[in-house]
């Protein structure tokens, strides 16, 4: 029995179960990959996608079940075995050495030698051959650190092909790419399957699945929740499979009733850690009761903008006014005390103290105020009762308020941050990448919480790399390009294409420019 057709699959995973102490990461999972096929593995974070792929790639040994490669039963004891069987993996986090060239990175661990010396010329020749064959344009002599994220990803693909991979596992390959790069990457994926490679594509983005998949397997809680055919499946049906319940796609959102400006940024100039001026003369007004979305390719000044507004980074020039007060030189604490909430981009670095309990994290910015403190002393009872209340209100899934935040899932960690930043006397909210890496259920929850706050008259500055998020939440949208807002749109009128083009080029399409 080899699935629904007669060919022998290139990869046949049968009944794989993998447990970790106390956790069943995969339970009785089947997966069949045919030659020249793109098989999408879809699932929320924690559904067991990565575990399954690590089993296939030889990083873990399954407790039960079998893996066949081209009909041959295999038992991998390490990554080397998997590579020998023609399996290659492109990890979500690239495993490249920035100071080495492309060619050096590609041969790393598989060095071609000529006597005692590296035969880099032979390697270059083969890399160029691969590039021509699959349409992967990268300069083999460029330093990897100088390449864009999209190019680095191509290097990872070349690395796998160089080791003669026939089966490629791509772990969330589009998470780091801009919309334009995603299209380009899909082109590469298609040319790979056209040349007979087989691909397992791991993702949690429904649009992508429908765009590239030949076959879809959905994982939920470590089990196969179902398989789907992309020609008949819809985003909604896939999401329901993934989450296990009905998912409301469009965020329900009434009209905005904007009031006075709460955040007023004029001519802001900010430098990044290396001293490069990444925000350069940016001006924007966020009014009470509206969500202003900042779209843009990452690295165009988003981080510095957010840090400057929240007082975490000094400004080189320009002014920031929050609720009518000059906040240009204020400290993070002063800005918080004005009534500003801040959901930071880097959850683990800034948002939480992982080793602390949920309760302590929920008061991280107000531990010094009554009722949480009586003069110098912490008031444990008040801290606990606040935690109980917020955990219930924000639906943080946890066995108790004294659990360390490190032990929560990303979605629940983010809910802790959101709970903290959205409660209290908040009038302005700065939000950066609020749903990065979260599952559908948590995204829905956090989006609704932000909209509810807007409806209460809070002004929200939203920065996100997810265009869908910007589009579905924002009342107005600005495109950030090289530290400046190059266009402002009404949230209802903006289209993906329009924004995407502006994000990539910093200017509106020429035809339209000529017309206007």
């Amino acid at each position: 029995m080899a699935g629904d057709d007669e060919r022998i699959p290139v990869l046949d995973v049968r009944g794989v179960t993998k447990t970790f102490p106390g956790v069943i990461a995969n339970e009785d999972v089947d997966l069949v990959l045919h030659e020249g096929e793109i098989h999408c593995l879809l699932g929320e974070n924690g559904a067991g996608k990565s575990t399954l792929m690590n089993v296939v790639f030889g990083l873990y040994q399954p407790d039960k079940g079998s893996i066949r490669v081209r009909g041959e039963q295999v038992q991998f004891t390490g990554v080397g075995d998997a590579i020998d069987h023609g399996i290659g993996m492109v990890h979500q986090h690239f495993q490249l050495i920035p100071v080495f060239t492309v060619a050096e990175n590609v041969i790393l661990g598989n060095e071609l030698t000529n006597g005692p010396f590296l035969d880099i010329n032979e390697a270059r020749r083969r890399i160029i051959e691969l590039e021509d064959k699959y349409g992967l344009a990268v300069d083999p002599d460029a330093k990897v650190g100088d390449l864009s994220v999209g190019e680095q990803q191509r290097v990872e693909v070349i690395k796998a092909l160089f080791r003669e991979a026939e089966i490629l596992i791509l772990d969330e390959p589009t998470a780091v790419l801009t919309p334009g790069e995603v299209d380009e990457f899909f082109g590469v994926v298609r040319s790979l399957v056209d040349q007979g490679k087989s691909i397992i594509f791991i993702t949690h983005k429904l649009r992508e699945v429908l765009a590239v998949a030949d076959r879809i397997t959905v994982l939920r809680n470590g089990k196969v929740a179902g398989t789907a055919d992309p020609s008949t499946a819809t985003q909604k049906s896939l999401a329901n499979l993934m989450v296990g319940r009905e998912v409301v796609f469009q965020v329900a959102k009434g009209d905005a009733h904007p009031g006075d400006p709460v955040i007023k940024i004029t001519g802001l100039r900010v430098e990044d850690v290396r001293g490069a001026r990444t925000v350069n003369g940016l001006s924007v007004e966020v009014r009470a009761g509206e969500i202003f979305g900042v779209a843009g390719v990452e690295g165009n000044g988003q981080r510095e903008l957010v840090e400057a507004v929240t007082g975490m980074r000094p400004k080189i020039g320009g002014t920031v006014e929050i609720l009518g007060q000059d906040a240009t030189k204020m400290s993070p604490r002063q800005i918080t005390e004005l009534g500003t909430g801040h959901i930071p981009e880097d959850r683990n670095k800034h948002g939480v103290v992982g080793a602390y309990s949920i309760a302590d994290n929920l008061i991280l910015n107000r531990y010094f105020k009554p009722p949480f403190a009586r003069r110098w002393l912490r008031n444990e009872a008040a801290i606990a009762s606040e935690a109980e209340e917020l955990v219930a209100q924000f639906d943080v899934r946890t066995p108790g308020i004294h659990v360390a935040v490190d032990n929560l899932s990303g979605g629940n960690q983010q809910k802790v941050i959101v709970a903290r930043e959205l409660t209290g006397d908040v009038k302005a909210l700065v939000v950066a990448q609020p749903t990065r890496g979260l599952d559908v259920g948590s995204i829905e929850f956090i989006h609704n919480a932000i909209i509810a706050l807007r409806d209460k008259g809070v002004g929200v500055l939203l920065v996100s790399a997810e265009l869908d998020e910007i589009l579905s939440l924002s009342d107005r949208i600005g495109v950030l390009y090289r530290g400046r807002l190059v266009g402002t749109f009404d949230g209802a009128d903006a289209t993906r294409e329009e924004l995407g083009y502006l994000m990539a080029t910093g200017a509106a399409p020429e035809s339209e420019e000529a017309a206007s």
Partner: protein
Amino acid sequence: MSMGTDQRDLEPSGFRLKVQEAFQLQPVLVPLYAILLSFIVGGILIALIGVNPFEAYWALLRGMFGSKDNIAASVARSVPFMGSALALAFAFRAGLFNIGAEGQLLVGGVTAAWVGTWAWMTDTPAIIAIPIILLAGAFGGFMWGWVPGILRAKTGAHEVISTIMLNSIALFLVRWIVNSRDPVILRDLEASVPRTEAISDTAELPTIIDSQPPLHWGLFVMLGVCFLIAFVLKRTTFGFETITVGTNPHAARYAGMSVDRIIILAMAISGACAGIAAASEVSGTNQLFQPGTFALIGFDGIAVALLARANPIGIIPSALLWGSLLSGAPLMQQEADVSIDVVRIIQSMVLLFVAADAIVRYIFRVRGEAEAHIKASTTGWAGQ
């Protein structure tokens, strides 16, 4: 998406909680096994030189606790280690590696002795004079900790480097203060060895047991400081800020805490802990200041604190162990002819095994991961 997240998300989290509870024994388990292991290796060492290790250890044990006087002496030897260990531990909780206790003790000690020799102190009742001399010691240590704190906060100079240098500066500074005959600064000109004049009788901490060294009220002072520091860390908002800065300085800044202020204060308070221990020695043990009496107490404090995993209460048994071993060793040398250095070797091995806890975990099958902050200290520079 890493494997870690996969596991986390899947489990009902309650499991992990139970595991954590089960691991509560852990912080104690590893040091205890490390001590056991060190004595085993030390025993082998003793056997190799042809001495029966059981006889040697029996002598050591009697030296430590064999009589009332021996017990008192053991406890007395332990008292200063509580202060020098707190000096490491408090800064440690703020993410700093203060190895300047040696210098902070010296400056605290010389300040205490100087204040103790003020003429009007002789007319001051003990109830006032003793707190004054202790506070003087704390102040000296506070200032000597404040300097590397401010250097770290304002210029980024690493506290490991600056405290090492300040140890040297303190050592030669107090030597000069106590040695110099022309001009006379604090030297007692009658004495044959360099030392200060005796402090006022009223500033002396009362002796409890007249052992060698004497057990005095400094014990209760240092126990009080241990509990006070534990309370500050656990119950006050300042303690919360300190631990937040030590655990995640980025999050601390984001939450509006002044990281610089905490760093400076944490270093200064650390110094004050060492300083008050030095004052207790000056006031209770020697009644004068002599630089040599503080040699190695600061550095041993690092070991005592790490053995206690930077827990202020844990420092108490840890210091008692350390002091008792040093106090008991001479009897082992007399009776079993095993050098005092063997005890030093055993002590060093204890710390080595605590640092390389993988060895202990492997031999004694202790499960679990090392606490991150302890790991950082023993494998890198306080997580730098």
